[in-house]
């Protein structure tokens, strides 16, 4: 009885299941989907290979390797933070390791206070370096740092506050481009000099080290190492996912609009300085989290982390990977750092030259970084395949 006006309404139509969020991501943003999948696999595989596979077996992962991968993940998170502001908003920060180091110091302070009487001087409250300096009581900013939740709050708060104040001053005065980069560089250098001083109360040039345990777990235990590793992986995944959500929101589109035509964005009615400030502060907090996860894995934090060269290196990772794509930042951070690990082992003197050359090559020939090569390759493969198909058919 159906007529043309009622198009097959009662027919039990085959309804495909709605796509899962994972399927949607794989379809719309394949690189992100691939990255998060790989990350999940690594997160599950590494603990098995480290703990369950017996030592001496081919597949056994040494503690050194686990920590190394954990370190790379911290760097990747830092690179994502830098890419978020540089790749998407055009703010080239040459001082982002300052925020990384501040997060690291906050974690380091907590770990120092956990040492307790096990230090060389056995003082229940004062860390060794304070006893050594003949200090009688804890400086005010060390109070509360023995409480884990408070210390973790500081991991976010210290970099966030610095970025907030700095950003408020810089963006309100419309400092942009090279000038902003130079100021960020000066900022991290100033912090480097300040943290070198013993009177600052952060352990001077030795920094904070000799950590014993975290939340009561011995840092030297394989299980602790694995938990730290997994926490880092989760932080990287969550950080990546949040950044992805940010850049895909309308906020993200406004931010990219600011990157491309700042005054136009203003004349449309966007308060550019607010947008920059929020993004910059968020990015700094992310860098702080990366630093906080880095410190217990490497076992030390010292003022060297503030060195301007470190910040420049991060920018190179992002440039090599491909700025303006979050997965590019991750790829770049891991590739360059892996190269660094191999190179500094084989040819320690050559590394800085290689790094410099890499930056020049990428700037000149790969403006979209390594990940920018992929679409090109795909395109070439496709044309090749088409040509072959045509050749066969004729």
């Amino acid at each position, binding site marked *: 009885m159906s007529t043309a006006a009622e198009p097959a309404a009662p027919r039990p139509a085959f309804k495909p299941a709605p796509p899962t969020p994972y399927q949607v991501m794989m379809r719309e943003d394949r690189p992100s989907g691939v990255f998060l999948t790989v990350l999940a696999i690594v997160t599950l595989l590494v603990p098995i290979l480290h703990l369950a596979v017996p030592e001496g077996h081919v597949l056994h992962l040494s503690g050194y390797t686990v920590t190394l991968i954990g370190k790379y993940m911290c760097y990747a998170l830092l690179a994502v933070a830098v890419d978020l502001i540089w790749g998407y908003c055009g703010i080239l920060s040459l001082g982002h390791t300052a925020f990384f180091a501040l997060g690291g110091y906050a974690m380091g302070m907590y770990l120092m206070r956990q040492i307790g009487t096990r230090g060389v001087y056995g003082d229940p409250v004062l860390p060794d370096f304070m006893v050594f300096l003949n200090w009688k009581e804890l400086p005010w900013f060390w109070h509360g740092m023995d409480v884990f939740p408070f210390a973790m709050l500081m991991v976010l708060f210290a970099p966030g506050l610095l970025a907030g104040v700095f950003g408020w001053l810089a963006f309100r005065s419309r400092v942009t481009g090279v000038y902003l980069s130079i100021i960020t560089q000066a900022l991290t250098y100033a912090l480097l000099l300040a943290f070198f001083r013993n009177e600052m109360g952060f352990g001077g040039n030795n920094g904070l080290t000799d950590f014993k345990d975290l939340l009561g777990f011995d840092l030297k235990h394989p299980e602790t190492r694995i938990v730290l590793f997994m926490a880092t992986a989760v932080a990287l995944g969550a950080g990546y996912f949040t950044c992805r959500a*940010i850049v895909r*929101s*309308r*906020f993200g*589109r*406004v931010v*990219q*609009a600011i*990157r*491309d*035509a700042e*005054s*136009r*964005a*203003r*004349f*449309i*009615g*966007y*308060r*550019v300085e*607010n*947008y920059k400030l*929020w993004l910059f502060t968020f990015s700094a907090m992310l860098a702080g989290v990366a630093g906080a996860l880095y410190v217990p894995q490497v076992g030390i934090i010292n003022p060297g982390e503030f060195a301007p060269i470190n910040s420049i290196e991060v920018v190179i990772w992002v440039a090599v990977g491909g700025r303006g794509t979050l997965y590019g930042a991750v790829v770049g951070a891991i590739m360059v750092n892996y190269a660094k690990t191999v190179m500094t082992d084989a040819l320690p003197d050559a590394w800085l030259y290689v790094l410099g050359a890499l930056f020049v090559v990428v700037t000149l020939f790969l403006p979209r970084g390594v990940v920018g090569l992929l679409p090109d390759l795909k395109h070439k493969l496709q044309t090749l395949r088409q040509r072959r198909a045509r050749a066969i058919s004729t």
Partner: protein
Amino acid sequence: MNAPTSMGMAGRFGGAFGRVLQRRGSSSAPSLDLTHNIILYVEGVTVSFDGFRALNDLSLYVAPGELRCIIGPNGAGKTTMMDVITGKTRPDTGSVWFGQTLDLLTLGEPEIAQAGIGRKFQKPTVFSEHSVFENLELAMAGDKSVWKMLFARLTPEQLTRIDEVLETIGLKDHRSARAGSLSHGQKQWLEIGMLLMQDPALLLVDEPVAGMTPQETERTAELLTSLAGKHSVVVVEHDMNFVRSIARTVTVLHQGSVLAEGTIDEVQNDPKVIEVYLGEPRC
């Protein structure tokens, strides 16, 4: 031209209150008071750059719904005037009021844009990495605070509005094209489209037909004429044919102040104008 001045003075009593409302308001045109039938007051504005007077005691009044053309030789201060109105440049002296209550000299560029003044630049500036659709989406009127934008979703009405504007500016087939890949004329149109999305009470349009083909110029003229009435439109243009085709009132700027004002014929026959434009064709 004396009457609007005194009205402007009277309007200033509401200034502080108007500003409070403006801060709190989130819609595109909060508390625009047009009781004296003037939307824009520019009074005695002087701007100097290193001793050079770009604007010299400039006074100008625009009525609601008016289509005003501003012409003048290079360096007459046309663009500087737009900079002052939109908050980019602060004048040394003078006052600029939007309606009776909004003192534009106390507001920044985003606030002025939110209050209802849209601007099209001389060189078309669109967001080149965004699609045509996204450019319009970004320009859309509404609350533009950080938190709103983080969770903003397009409503069906907003989608319809964007499609309407795409239709109007003839870029329907380029909806998802990268704005940077458009031709010069299409970019001009897209920028006009962005102005439409902003839905401002006052549009400032700087040389809209520069680099356009004659057909495109004609369509632009039609569009601007159709906008007048609902919006006030101020157009700066060099193309005299274009000015003739759209203008009801023409203001001639010269050396930073108003030289003449009237219909296009009055202005073109004004001896002062002829003197300034001596040697320029068709004037």
